[in-house]
């Protein structure tokens, strides 16, 4: 006769082993978010016990704050262009590496490198590449006679955001490439063989079979890229600090400035909570839209 173990014995074990994770999440994720929401209704310098409840006034200020809207706009430009530029290139690279087999092993490794470098290091690297006087980029442009194209990339408010965007793409294309590569590798080879036997061309195979099968992966990549772009901070902080003249200001850099440089912890929290709301709203809309238009395969 086999003895059935009582259920609650498992439950106890489960609780004990889940506890550290749940505790960490509560302390470092849930609590700070709730605390930010509370702080968004206060005026507080971030020092001492001088928190004053001010009702909705921070939120009213946010609605009229041109810098915040500009930052939100920059975030949206960043998100849209990131998706439009990064994903197709990443997919093309993944396809190439997938088809190339062993010959591509070196490139597989090389393309992966930007992902391994910390954002701060990348920031410093590109600070020097973009330097209008000594930088690599302008030196190359001048060298091949394209002097008119040599610009002060980070110093010109109309260019700075795009200059930063280029670096962000360079940094994150490898990440999306990796996701696509994994998806392609898990696709059974028989599909390809069967399609070819049925008379499909490579082109048809890609558009009719590979791409529909990648739907789920593409949706994941879009959402990751979107959320990443909306919360983006580190590279901007190092490269431009949100300048010049606010042209590369993002919601996260603006939040940092308000909370830590201007000693407006209350208003900074309002910006932070608004950032969370924007991310939740947009990613929710995107997720439900992409689900609705998903085709059965």
């Amino acid at each position: 006769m086999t003895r059935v173990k009582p259920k609650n014995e498992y439950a106890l074990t489960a609780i004990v082993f889940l506890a550290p994770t749940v505790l960490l999440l509560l302390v470092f994720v849930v609590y700070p978010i709730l605390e930010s929401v509370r702080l968004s209704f206060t005026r507080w310098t971030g020092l001492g016990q001088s928190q004053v409840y001010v009702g909705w006034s921070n939120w009213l200020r946010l609605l009229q704050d041109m810098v915040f809207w500009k930052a939100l706009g920059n975030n949206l430009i960043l998100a849209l262009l990131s998706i439009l530029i990064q994903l197709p290139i990443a997919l093309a690279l993944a396809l190439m590496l997938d088809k190339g087999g062993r010959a591509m092993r070196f490139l597989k490794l090389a393309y992966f490198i930007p992902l391994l470098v910390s954002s701060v290091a990348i920031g410093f690297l590109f600070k020097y590449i973009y330097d209008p006087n000594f930088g690599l980029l302008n030196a190359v442009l001048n060298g091949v006679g394209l002097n008119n194209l040599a610009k002060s990339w980070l110093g010109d408010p109309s260019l700075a955001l795009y200059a930063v965007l280029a670096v962000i793409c360079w940094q994150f294309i490898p990440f999306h490439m990796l996701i696509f590569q994994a998806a392609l590798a898990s696709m059974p080879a028989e599909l390809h063989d069967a399609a070819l036997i049925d008379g499909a061309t490579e082109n048809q195979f890609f558009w009719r079979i590979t791409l529909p099968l990648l739907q789920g992966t593409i949706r994941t990549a879009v959402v990751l890229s979107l959320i990443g772009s909306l919360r983006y901070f580190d590279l901007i902080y190092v490269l431009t600090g949100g300048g010049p003249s606010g042209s590369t200001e993002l919601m996260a850099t603006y939040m940092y400035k308000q909370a830590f440089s201007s000693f407006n912890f209350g208003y900074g929290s309002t910006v932070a909570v608004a950032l969370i709301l924007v991310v939740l709203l947009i990613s929710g809309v995107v997720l439900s839209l992409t689900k609705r238009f998903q085709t059965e395969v």
Partner: protein
Amino acid sequence: MNHKLLAGLGILGLVAGASVLAQQKKEIVFWHIQSSEPGLSLVKKQVDRYMAANPDVNVQVVPIQNDAYKTKIKVAMGAGQGPCVFATWGGGPLFEYVKANQIIDLTSLLNENNYKNRFLSASFSAITFNNKIYGVPVEGVSISIFYYNKQMFAKLGLQEPATIAQLVSTANTLKKNGIVPFSLANKTKWTGSMYFMYLVDRMGGARTFINAATRANGGSFQNPVFIRAGKMLQDWVKAGYFNEGFNGLDYDSGQSRGLLYAGKAAMELMGNWSTSIMRSENPAFATNVGIFPFPAMRAGGPAGNVVGTVGDNYYHIASNCKHQKESFEMIKFLIDDQAVTERGAAGRIPPVKSFKPTDPDLKNIVELVNNAPGTQLWYDQYLAPELGEAHKDTTQALMGLTMTPEQAAKIMEDTAKRLAGK
């Protein structure tokens, strides 16, 4: 059985952790930002001497890099987990600590045995609020001056300009010879602000800014002086006196000094800390560098203030520190006679009266400070933090020609009014 054992182990793992050791010594935690040499050992040596003389105290010295420090100290103090002794730059942000009762009033400790008289009197201006002194000036004198390439000036027959008109004609001559007159890296923002502060001082005297900042005597940031200063600065930008793309360059990464070193630019308005940076980065170039103060408005007119701080960094004692008396004694070691000698030898200017520099460059700077009618603290340090940020943002936009001086003045005045109303 197995599961119970595992569960038990898990619980043990959760519980096991902090075993608190009995502390016999008095602990003082000390945060500062002298994270590179010679500052690092200048602090450490004095603290070691203090601990040798006071074996019952243990000082835990934590050097933190400048930019990281600004965030770290704020979070720590806000959470009530701050160090006993810490550094600030004085001015508006320090005043926030005072208002939040985070640091203690040192007036009576400084008055004991006339200890206060040891220091240059100007060194207390940035740490005195309502006639109470909240810090000890230690690290040095930081004032803004023009650095210039002596060889280049000699080759083109240029003199150190004594008036703004001469500065402009010097810039024109340099420009004609294909050299950028002023090297500037203004991603950092406080760098470009130096030009603005000096122009305001030279055009309107010290009171214009002080009145606007303290909202006294009808002072306003929309005073025509601020607008005229902004206009002149924009004229200089339009005339190409500054290097291309300055708003995207980072001072902390050396992008403005690179232009000087390469001979592409002739001058840089910068804090006198530049001397020691140039000496370590490019010793050959450093011997070829001269300094002059920001010129006066007109010949024979008043020389005007120097912009900068005397005594910055300052050290403060937190209100929740358990060993305040010991902390103060420890700070005294940082700037006692032996420390002053060591600091002087390392190229620093300790803010004490007894210090007589032998180095000619240091001598020049000390004379400049002593001869000036007064010291104007950096705007971004003098002003309340939010207004200081507004000043830096508007000045960067002004120099980027994306904002008119009138718009900049209005933003400053509106922010000042809003903060005053709080």
